[in-house]
């Protein structure tokens, strides 16, 4: 399991690094133009550490990811993603994950982000991708959907959540300084969250 998780994070790192300029441009429009640069710096470091390490458990990989992001990303997204992955590392097991587990994991991640950033849904942040994704998982669980369908729905919810940030006015993060001028732009953090979810889901569906 540890190795599969390692592969998953290596792929995630590649996706973030590929999208460095895209994320940075989104951030330039309503923030300070460094979101892609920040995440790419952290995920590059993570690649090094993953490639040179061997791991016993999923939890260990999540913890390393968390610590690496916290001490290499900086900005707002570093502590937020770091805390999210740290929280996940505290609950994630090495057994096969069922829908119930995924709900718990997503809620832990969101709780971590909210503890640090004190934001709610609708404030035009990464939470606007993550909360709908988590809600979708919960709905699938309540309706007893199978895992594959649940993950497809979750990905759709994440995408919709990300796109919905375009119409939102930011009230947290740097974009909030723009007031109404923040409307009409997709949030960079919501976008990176979508990319991470997408990589996770696509690679576990295979």
């Amino acid at each position: 399991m540890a190795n599969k998780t390692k592969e998953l994070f290596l792929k995630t790192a590649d996706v973030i690094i590929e999208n460095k300029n895209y994320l940075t441009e989104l951030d330039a429009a309503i923030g300070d133009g460094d979101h892609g640069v920040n995440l790419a710096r952290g995920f590059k470091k993570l690649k090094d550490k993953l490639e040179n390490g061997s791991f016993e458990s999923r939890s260990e990989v999540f913890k390393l990811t968390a610590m690496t992001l916290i001490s290499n990303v900086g900005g707002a997204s570093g502590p937020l993603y770091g805390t999210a992955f740290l929280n996940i590392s505290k609950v994630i097991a090495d057994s096969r994950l069922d829908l119930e587990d995924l709900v718990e994991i997503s809620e832990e991640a969101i709780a971590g982000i909210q503890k640090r950033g004190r934001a709610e849904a609708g404030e035009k942040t990464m939470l606007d991708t993550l909360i709908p994704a988590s809600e979708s998982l919960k709905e699938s669980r309540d309706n007893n959907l199978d895992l594959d369908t649940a993950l497809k729905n979750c990905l759709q919810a994440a995408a919709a959540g990300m796109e919905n940030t375009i119409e939102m006015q930011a009230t947290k993060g740097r974009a909030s300084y723009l007031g109404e001028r923040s409307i009409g732009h997709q949030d960079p953090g919501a976008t990176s969250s979508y990319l991470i979810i997408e990589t996770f889901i696509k690679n576990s569906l295979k």
Partner: protein
Amino acid sequence: MGKKLINDPDNVVKEMIEGIVMASNDRLEKLDGYNIVLRKDAPVEKVALVSGGGSGHEPAHAAYVGQGMLDAAVAGDVFTSPTPDAIFEAVKAVDSGNGVLLIIKNYTGDLMNFEMAAEMAEAEGIEIEQVIVNDDVAVEDSLYTTGRRGVAGTVFVHKIAGAKAASGAELKEVKRSAEKVIKNVRTKGVAINPCQLPAAENSTFSLAEDEMEMGIGIHGEPGTEKVKIKKVDEIVDSLLKDILTDLKIKKDDKVALMVNGMGGTPLMELYIANRRANNFLSNKGIKISKNYVGEFMTSLEMEGLSLTILKLDGDLTNLLEAETEVNLLK
């Protein structure tokens, strides 16, 4: 656009920090393995002051390290808060057992990273306090937003808290002085040309030939509104009006005035703006006890300026005028 006098964009902060330390004529040193600048004689037997934030604001914050101001400055990547581990290292390096004050600018990223560092320091038994600077009147202050940004007014916090700490005051008192500055300082800025991050391909915002951004911050964020460029006298008047209204300054009040260039603004223009700012305040019967003109809190090569007003009383005046080895604040 786009040309820079650098080497590898990934190394700008480290190389810059080394250059700053070399330029200090032996007053400063770099903490090995970190982009942290320390007083060479640290830890000094007094309350220590640690500040920092993203890079690209030079001379902030590293050049404010020195007797009478900061004990350490932690430099993050360009426009990116430093990470908790680095801040924690700085705190450990300067704490003499008298406690450490963190001076933080009000940005989500800075708050979270400094907060995590404070948690780490407390866990090691270091006495730690923090103040959050939010002097930018361009941003509406409301409970439901992230609140105002910390910008050039931060420099006055460094100076006055630094003087208080140098006087031998205790952590709580130093914190109180810092908070008094924060309560009495306001800033607003304008840009006529944007800046570009070393690692990015484009400017952070774009402006037409006849436009300017009012209410810009120090991270190349777009400001509050794009307007047609005006004469600098009109710009100064408009910035000062917003500041004075917010600070509730009235006739016979004493203030310090800082005219701050954003990085690419020629000094000539800052002096012309300073002339108007002086005339504007004098006409209102406000007394300028101390006037600073230059680059204090920049945004890479952005062209623009900010005006900062600090309302003074006798206590703040004395601390502002207290000796420091940092030439910029003499």
